[in-house]
């Protein structure tokens, strides 16, 4: 029998439990690193929104952002940190537990 813990959603990582940031983290979870352009296409966010959320994730230590130049053009690449990977994994587990519990 599954134990009912109605407080589970309150334990979700609030920074990650947001659709845009979740999408970014889900993409980064599948690779070592991705550039800004790839994230833009994969998440279908706008440049401004993606930038804002990436900054939030970087401040929390969930992603590493490297800025460089490719010829004349700026190039941004993003990688998930160990802490980010751990937190994302944990959140996925919590979602699964919540789904099981509520039967949705």
């Amino acid at each position, binding site marked *: 029998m599954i134990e009912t813990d109605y407080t589970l959603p309150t334990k979700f990582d609030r920074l990650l*439990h*947001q*659709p845009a940031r*979740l*999408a970014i983290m*889900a*993409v*980064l*979870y*599948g*690779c*070592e*690193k*991705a*550039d*800004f*352009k*790839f*994230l*833009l*296409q*994969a*998440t279908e966010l706008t440049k401004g929104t993606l930038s804002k959320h990436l900054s939030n994730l970087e401040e929390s230590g969930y992603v590493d952002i490297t800025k460089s130049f490719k010829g004349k053009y700026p190039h941004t*690449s993003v990688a998930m940190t160990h802490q980010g990977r751990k937190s994302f994994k944990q959140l*996925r587990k919590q*979602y*699964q537990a*919540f*789904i099981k519990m509520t039967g*949705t």
Partner: protein
Amino acid sequence: MNQNSSAVNGQVDLDDLTRKTRRMEFDDGLNDLQNGIVFLVLGLLAAFGLSETGARWFISMAIKYGDLVMLIFIVLVAAIAGLLFGIRWAIDRYRKNSLWVQSGYIRSFRWQVDSRINILAVLVFLIVMSLGFAGMFWGNFDDGSDVRFLAAGAGIATGVVYAGMGVSLHLRRYLWVGIIGGALCATLLIVPVSFALSWAIMGAIWGVVLITSGVFAYASFRHTWVEHSND
């Protein structure tokens, strides 16, 4: 996580996004081409190096020329390794500077196969190997079956890896590559060929299957790429 998980966060299917990112490495078919070339090269080397003629030639050359032959051998091994790393490097440059310019660039994990698939492949390999030894022990198979089953086992296990990746990444092409390659390698279980030839056949099967898959995938990827460029 299943589709229900998207209900929790409103709109994001986490698994699908992760899967699409992981699949990026295989979508353009270049990975298949690279692995196909590796199998062909290794198959050719095995055909010569593991054969009686090859071994005899190598020993006679070593006696005649001594250290020089060893040096050439080491240089040859290094050249093959260099060729393989060179292909990897060229693919990476090509993707970075041309093929993936529009889609954006990712660096994939070095090893993309799930641990469960790895374990299953190793189990399949061990079972096929044990069958070869057991069959020979009880006299059901021919004398060379133990070593021939080694190549067959490796080939079938490779098929399990590809089919498993096809399932986990939702990549139908790999499912078929795994089934076809694995089934063709299984013929080595019944065809009595020498040890060297069995490895050569296994290398040739996987070389041809992967290069064919790679060429088709690349052509289709390139077609989509050109269409997007014209938009």
